[in-house]
Structures are given as structure tokens and as C-alpha cells.
């Protein structure tokens, strides 16, 4: 996306298009990355409800994955995942889980 010049901007730093946060990728802010174990997940969608960045991708009532372009790694999804399930683990960026390496 070509950056706009000052003459093209709305005054006062206003933004007139709604829902434009999607255009701003915040994935690089992450220190810890949520990694979801599909075999444990019951698709209760609590993580989808709580995610402040709408980064839990859902289709037909089922979780399809995590939008790492926008997930900031806050860890709320892992926190709200029911204790008996614990399908989401926060892993430090750059340290990929052993099973994923295999």
C-alpha cells in the first residue's frame, strides 16, 4: 500500500473508513505465540469471544486457525481456554515446539 501524502489525509488525524485496523498488521509485536493443539480443542469458541484482535479464525462454528498477521500475543486465548482442555499454549517466538520440528 502506497503511503499517502499530507494533502490526501483527513485533517486532525481522523480516519473516515471504518474497520481499517485489518490493514494494519500487528503480528510482529508478539513475544509469545499462541499454539493450538487441534486434537485437544473442543471448539467451545471462548478464545474467539475473548480475542481482542479478532485473530481466531472461525468457519462454520469450527476454529480454523490463528491469524498470526494480527495476533499480538497477549495470551488471553490461552488464559480463557478451559482448564481441563488447555488446547492453547503460549510459546516464545523463535522457539518452536519439539513436536512441530519432528
Amino acid at each position: 500500500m502506497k503511503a499517502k501524502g499530507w494533502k490526501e489525509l483527513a485533517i486532525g488525524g481522523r480516519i473516515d473508513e471504518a474497520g481499517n485496523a485489518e490493514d494494519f498488521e500487528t503480528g510482529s509485536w508478539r513475544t509469545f505465540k499462541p499454539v493450538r493443539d487441534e486434537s485437544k480443542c473442543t471448539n467451545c469458541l471462548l478464545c474467539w469471544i475473548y480475542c481482542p484482535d479478532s485473530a481466531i479464525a472461525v468457519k462454520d462454528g469450527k476454529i480454523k486457525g490463528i491469524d498470526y498477521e494480527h495476533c499480538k500475543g497477549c495470551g488471553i486465548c490461552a488464559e480463557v481456554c478451559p482448564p481441563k482442555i488447555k488446547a492453547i499454549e503460549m510459546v516464545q517466538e523463535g522457539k518452536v515446539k519439539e513436536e512441530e520440528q519432528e
Partner: protein
Amino acid sequence: MKVVKDKVVIALTGNDAVAEAMRQVNPDVVAAYPITPQTELMHKFADYVADGDVKTEFVLVESEHSAMSAAVGASAAGARVMTATSANGLALMWEIVYIAASTRLPIVMALVNRALSAPINIHCDHSDAMGARDAGWIQLFSENSQEAYDNAIQAVKIAEDRDVLLPVMNCLDGFILSHTLEPVELVPDKFVTDFIGEFQPVHNLLDSDNPTTFGPLDFHDYYFEHKIPQIEAMKRAPAVIERVGAEFAKATGRAYGLLEKYRTGDAERIVIAMGSTCGTAKAVVDVLREKGEKVGLLKIRSFRPFPCRQVREALAGAKAVGVLDRAVSFGSQGGPLAIEIRSALYDNVKVPVKGYIYGLGGRDMPGECVEQAFEELKRVAADGKSSDENGFLGVRE
């Protein structure tokens, strides 16, 4: 219900005069917190609210930070908003003062000038306004209560002009004007209503058909671009201030520009000042003129935007200039006004300038002090050299 139908001259303090202007403007929202010497201004306006003389939503907040925050929110929501403060109150609202200007919200705030602490002092100087000079607000200074009243009305029209859309600080000297009774000519209520018209915000937060975001995050990629339109708006402001002043003069006979030249036409020594001291300086100029001395006063009404070109023109024939500053810019080459004057003259008009700091913390500025400056300017004119000399008026050694 209070109604002013015809022009009338009544005795008012500066605070009451501005409150009267606010009654006539009838703003949608006023948010304020009391601080001396602004308190009586809002007391008076609160009376108008309580008596049903205005339809204003009067928001009593817990601090000046909240006052300006409420003003910003209300203005973004499309309301015509006014407030008032002084010194430490302005200091507390600092963060939001910048946000109001950067968000291009045409809020009008009376600033009843008072010295900033410490030591704590409730009396007049311009350190509060000068501290906020780079915040992006238009700053108008008043010589007397009449001007404070007139400026309050004009400020609304200037701020809301589509070429401007910047907040305006209506500065009046604490106590010297705010608490002193003077005859003030009021314009009829209907004149004010017609003069300022209905507020038409460009966008507002409550317009759900055209949703818009105010105050989003900006990084290194866009912050710089968002500052340029602010600079451009400030460049357009002088023409609007002059146009509004001319329109006001047509109805009232009281002319307003960016500055006022008082007997400067053939003046060899010119003193420059802002605020109530201009009245004192005019009296001194008259006395010295009687004695045949070629002296004059240049009164700066608009400190922001600063009228560089007009200052150069006014000082082109002078042999010495004295700048009276009621504030200090610590570590600089003179008070804030002296710095502006020297900067405006540099490379354009070659005339020696002497800066004076006076009247800090409400120290009286008698005519003798202005006379002393005019007297010293004789030597400055004789030396004829551009000087970075700065002095003080009315301080004990």
C-alpha cells in the same frame, strides 16, 4: 431571562465580560474546573446556566485535565465548546491542550493569565500562555475588558472557520482585567447569534451514517504528514482573524487586526507589548508625544499566529525598539515576545532591539517603567547597533 436587545454600556469585570460573551454565544457544552483568577468567570457563567439563560450542558469535572478532555470529546461529537482556565490549571490540562489542536477541534478557551508556580502566585503574568505557545492554539491577547469580551465572540468565528479549525485561547490579564470593573459596551444577543452562526462540524462522532475515528494511533509513517495541515491552517489563520475583525468592526466600530499600531507612523522609538500593559504604554506615549518625543506603541493582539510581516512593516522606520515581556524563557536570548520580534526583523529590518522582562507574578507596571524603557531606548538608538541586550523593569536588586 437575561436578554440584551440593544447596544448597552455597563460596568463589568473582565471575567464577567467574558462570561457575558459566553452567555450570548450559548455554547452547547462548557466543561471547567475553578482556579483563581478564572473562578469568577465560571461562577458567572454557572449563574446563567442555573437561571436558564443558556442551553449549555455544563460539565463539572474533577480537574483541568478532565475539563479539556471533556471539551475535546464534546467538540469531536459536534458540539460548540468553550472553557476557561488559568496558570496551573492550564499546566494540568497540558496533554489535552495539544490534542485539542492536533485533532483540529475549534474549542474556545478564556485564559485568565496568571504566573506559574513556584513560588505559588495567583497574580498576572504571561508564563502560562507563553508555555502553551507551541501547542497549536491561536492566542489572542486583550488590552482591556472590552477587548476580552469582543475577542471571546470573534474567537468562536475564527476557530470554526473552515480555513482554520483550530482552538483559540482568549488571553486576558488576571486581576488587572479579570477583577477590575470597566465600562464595556455589549452587542445585542441577536448580533452574536447571527455573527457566529450555527456550528457546522466537518465530521462528528455521533453521525452514525458516516462513521469516523478521532484520535487514532500514528507512527513514524504518518505523524509527520498529520502535522503539516496544522501548520498550513495556522498560515491561513491571519487572513481569517483580519476578516472576522473587519466584520466585527463594521457592526461595532471597534477595529481588530493582528496588531495595533499606536502613534508609530513617524515614531523613532517603539515599545512592543501585549495585554493590559498596552493601555499604560499608550498613556505614556501620549505624555511623551506632548513633549515632542517621537515614540509609539506596537500592540500584539495575535501572538499565535505571529504577524511577522506586519511587525516588519510597523518597525521599518524605527531607530530603536523595546520589547516588554511578561514572561521569561529561561536560558533564551530574551522573553518569548522579544525572541519573536528579533526573529521577524532578522535579515529584513535593521533596528536595535532591547528586551525587557517586567511584571512577573503580578508586579505592578506603572507608567514610570514604560518611560524608563523609552528613555533607555534613546541610548540604544544612538548606539545604533543590533543588540541582544535584555533588561528588567520594576525589580529590586
